[in-house]
């Protein structure tokens, strides 16, 4: 549990880019930065899983695809018709008689086509936004459900940031791809094919020129993207380094100052900054080359078409309007090509993100509940450890056959140096982890024969890690008993010596705890968790006495409140106070994960073992 207490890295997961203009990926063709592409382990399987999520929306998606094709098709026909208009004008000009009627008809047709194309394109975008948002919603929902089904061991081995980034970054990546790239693939391919067909209807010679340009541009794009990726990763590495140095130096500012480390720190910074500059300008330069290259190629094509078209026109093979149409096609040609070149990358990074999400969703759940749970009438609170063997990883047992029995109402103190694994007992009692062999029984019933919810309802927990959530104080106290009346909440707070300080707070019971829950003190938080446990009123108790960074007066209150809470309840106390330890019916002494000694204070002292040395060291002379 100790490693879990650190705050997850909030700053890194706030997806600033996803909310704003960053969504325009792939449009304007400005040649944005492209990082090295993350590759999924199993592209096919991930895509199959993703498609499964899309299945309920298949009709919408088919409509979207059809609309996208139609809309693109209409835009592609446009230039050709416009070219015919020009041809009509030219012909009329040469004959000194322009056929306005025919031109008007064509223009009406064009306007109709463009309007329809815009309409279809919008409808398609509208539907697809809906689909992608719903899929995103479902993914997030499934992740949140999954969090509550996974065994604790999963989280104890990972940082919160890791799980958090699946809900935010990874899901966002998937959502963005669904929203844009899917349609982009369809429109880009339709465009390329459609434009090629239209070009061919105008002139095969000119089309040939356009097609020759295609591989040149693809080759150049690949070259530039490759180069820029190399420098981009270099830049990212330096950026990581410099951010790390900044974070480290600013958060260790006093130490840096106290040890006269300014010069060294600035020198280090300077060196990384230069390194960053080197990677950054090259990365920006190369990734920025994409646009001029595409413009250059576009212009090359333009010139080629102008010359070739002119020559063909003189020879009467084509007309001026055809050249105009062809130029428009050339202009429209580059964008889908850049997009197609990028699609593979987008799909890969999407698959990599989706894969992480699906991996998480596929993690093994907590062991399923017993099919026939024992009903628990009035529990007295006798707890028995029957030859319990346990280890966090199966190959490393830390508790080797532990047996003891606790009578109802007794107090069990768990003591040992930091890192001795005192929370293991808590983990086992609450079935956050299951024993490897042996059994823990409450009133003679194996806890694995109970429903987890029933078992956990038997205990109230007050941990050192005072977990409170953003919400009012009242909501926080009433957390363990929904529909508790205000009077009950107040009564519990009074019993936990909290009523007084709560009333002194702005808004008293309705005061909102902020995001970091740092608008009340650590000691006050601890009192609130005691009040919460008071109100939950479970027959048994798990308590962590540690009250570091609490001032002495509050500590006294906490101590009194805890005493009251323990009265009449079977209690397991992670003890730090000698008075608690001495008054306990049973003391479990832990060392390196194992329970090395057990007994009461007197018995243990007479053994003259680890407990004795622990006890003596506490008041050793400085």
């Amino acid at each position, binding site marked *: 549990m100790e490693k879990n207490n650190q705050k997850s890295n909030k700053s890194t997961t706030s997806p600033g880019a996803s909310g704003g203009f960053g969504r325009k990926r792939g449009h304007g063709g400005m040649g944005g930065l492209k990082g090295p592409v993350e590759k999924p382990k199993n592209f096919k399987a991930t895509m199959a899983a993703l498609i499964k999520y899309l299945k309920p929306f298949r009709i919408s998606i088919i409509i979207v695809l059809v609309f996208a094709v139609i809309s693109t098709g209409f835009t592609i026909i446009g230039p050709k018709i416009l070219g015919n208009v020009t041809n009509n004008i030219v012909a009329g000009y040469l004959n000194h008689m322009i056929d306005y009627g025919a031109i008007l008809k064509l223009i009406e047709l064009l306007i109709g086509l*463009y309007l329809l194309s815009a309409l279809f394109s919008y409808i398609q975008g509208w539907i697809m936004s809906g689909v992608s948002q719903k899929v995103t919603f479902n993914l997030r929902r499934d992740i949140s*459900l999954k969090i509550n089904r996974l065994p*604790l061991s999963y989280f104890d081995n990972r940082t919160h940031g890791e799980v958090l980034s699946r809900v935010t970054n990874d899901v966002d990546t998937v959502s963005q791809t669904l929203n844009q790239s899917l349609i982009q693939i369809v429109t880009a391919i339709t465009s390329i094919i459609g434009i090629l067909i239209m070009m061919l209807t105008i002139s095969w010679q000119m089309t040939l020129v356009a097609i020759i340009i295609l591989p040149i541009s693809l080759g150049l794009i690949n070259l530039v993207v490759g180069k820029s990726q190399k420098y981009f990763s270099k830049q990212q590495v330096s950026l990581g380094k410099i951010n790390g140095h900044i974070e480290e130096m*600013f958060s260790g500012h006093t130490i840096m100052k*106290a040890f006269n480390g300014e010069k060294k720190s600035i020198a280090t910074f300077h060196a990384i900054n230069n390194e960053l500059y080197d990677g950054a300008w090259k990365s920006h330069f190369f990734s920025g080359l994409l646009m001029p290259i595409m413009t250059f190629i576009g212009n090359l094509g333009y010139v080629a078409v102008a010359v070739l078209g002119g020559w063909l026109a003189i020879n009467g093979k084509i007309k001026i309007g055809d050249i105009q149409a062809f130029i428009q096609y050339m202009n429209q040609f580059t964008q889908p090509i850049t997009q197609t070149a990028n699609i593979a990358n987008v799909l890969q990074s999407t698959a990599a993100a989706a894969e992480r999400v699906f991996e998480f969703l596929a993690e093994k759940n907590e062991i399923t509940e017993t099919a026939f749970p024992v009903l628990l009438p009035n529990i007295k609170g006798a707890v028995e450890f029957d030859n319990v063997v346990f280890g966090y990883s199966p190959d490393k047992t830390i508790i080797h056959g532990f047996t003891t029995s606790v009578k109802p109402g007794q107090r069990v103190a768990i003591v040992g140096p930091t890192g001795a694994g005192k929370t293991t007992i808590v983990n086992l009692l609450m079935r956050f982890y299951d024993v490897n062999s042996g059994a823990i029984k409450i009133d003679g019933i194996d806890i694995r024969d109970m429903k987890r919810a029933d078992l956990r309802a038997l205990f109230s927990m007050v941990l050192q890690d005072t977990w409170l959530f953003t919400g009012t104080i009242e909501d926080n106290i009433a957390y363990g008993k929904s529909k508790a009346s205000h009077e009950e909440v107040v009564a519990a707070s009074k019993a936990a010596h909290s009523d007084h300080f709560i009333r002194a707070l702005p808004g008293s019971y309705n005061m909102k705890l902020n995001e970091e829950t740092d608008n009340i003190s650590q000691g006050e938080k601890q009192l609130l968790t005691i009040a919460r446990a008071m109100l939950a009123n479970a027959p048994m108790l798990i308590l962590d006495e540690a009250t570091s960074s609490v001032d002495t007066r509050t500590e006294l209150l906490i101590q009194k409140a805890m005493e009251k809470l323990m009265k009449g309840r079977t209690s397991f106390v992670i003890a730090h106070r000698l008075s608690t330890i001495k008054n306990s019916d049973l003391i479990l002494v832990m060392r390196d994960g194992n329970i090395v000694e057990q007994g009461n204070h007197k018995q243990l002292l007479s053994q003259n073992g680890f407990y004795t040395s622990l006890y003596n060291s506490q008041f050793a002379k400085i």
Partner: protein
Amino acid sequence: MTKLLKYFKPYIWPLVFLTILTFGQTMANLALPDYMANIVNQGIVGGDSGVIYHFGLIMLLITFAGGLATIGVGYLASKIGTGFSRKIRDALFTKIESFSLVEFNKFSTASLITRSTNDIQQIQRVLIMLLRLALMAPFMGIIAIAKAYSLAPSMSWIMAVSITALVVIIAVIFKIAMPKFKKLQKLVDKLNLVTREMLTGLRVIRSFNKEKYEENKFKEANQELTSVNLFVNRLMVILQPAMMLILNLTVITIVWLGAGQIDAGTLQIGNMLAFMQYAMQAIFAFLMISIIFIMIPRASVSATRIAEVLESETTIKDPKHPIKPKNLGGRIEFKDVAFSYTGSEEPVLQHLSFVAMPGQTTAIVGSTGSGKSTVVNLIPRFYDVTAGQILVDGVDVRAMSQKELRSRIGYISQKAILFSGTIRENIKYGMPNADDKDVMQAAEIAQALEFIEELEEKFESHIAQAGANISGGQKQRLAIARALAKNPEIFIFDDSFSALDFKTDAALRKALQTRIKGKTVLIVAQRISTIMHAEKIVVLDAGKIVGKGTHSELLRNCTVYREIASSQLSEQELANARA
């Protein structure tokens, strides 16, 4: 943003060059339709293929020149943009390193970090974009319009209409979307918060059987986020088709009106085609200008945040003529010291007078908020006193250079802070020329040797950022070793023992005895057991000294001390101490 302009100074010539290149690039791109018109008018209509090849060749050359100019622009833009941010980054970091805790509190550490990372990145990104486009877009817009106008003045109103339509549509969409973007960010934060709470509270949630409740909370946040996201997305998908429609309708209008003028003989066919191209380019230029106007406000927020830091001066400075204390020793004297944070009404410390002697341990106790840590923060000048003075070896700390002062102090903070690097580098941090023996000895006294020896690479083992790969107790021991290796006259332990278990605590304090003999030792502590044997104990309550003396003296005559002691020690131990 103007405040940062002076950092552009070294880039004046590159900027001039960039402007010239941008102009060249724009001219090149805009020259093509003219030649195209010539090809049509003289070549095709006139039936002269020589003209076609002639102009074709010119177009090819212009294309090459334009391409080169564009690459040059990209090169300069990247160099200037990243070079500028390198300068700012350096200036910002150097400035922040000079800050005292006063400025750190004013800005908050987290905010200083974002300012030196995200804000600078943001500026760099926008800057490069601006250098590439901001110059080009107006050039392109103006020249394209001018050229189009000269070709067919009577049709230029079409451009005016389309550009207005375009700008209006973009403005309206972003006007509606902007507040939603902000809301979106808040909702994302909220979803993150709920998720984070679910993760940090796993055990509590499960023990209270509140999984359903949390799931509902998540669902609510998820729904809200989804619905706003949906709205924004559906709004944004208008943009693309709307812009396409404007472009296409413009072209149609040009052809329709052009037909009449060609018929009347006032317009050449080639010129109509060229006009069409210029109109497109003008519209495109205005599209870019709109984007720039959307981006600038975001960068200017960052620029302001950076300028704020660059403009603040640290309040704690070295004196012009620093004094060096003549005698070493480490005697510390507080003379009627008072301290209050700027802007707060209540002083943190008042009328504080005491002396900490070399060869003695002076302890400071008191409840949270009594100002214990503040007392020791004043000695290395993390803050300056508001009134009174602090003397080290007879010299006011403000009269010494900070470097001189701090070189005499070994400071061990409450929260152990290590830096990434090897264990050896960390221990040597305050004394770069310490030899292996010093390092070894410091580690041994700090009770760190045992666990270091167990590590695969011993003293060369790498410590991750913030010491994330070792335990709290181990970190604290290394922090103590670091202070020991410095071998200063004064040791300040700011509640540094609470991360250690009792046993290590005791062993460490025993080993320390030899090393700190003759030194001035200041200990701030929560645990009475840690300090009950100190030569002098100073008891603080609400910023004032309420008792001075030894443990047994204070138990007799100091109520506050007795209260603290009785909450931690058993009756028997109290009795023992009294006896």
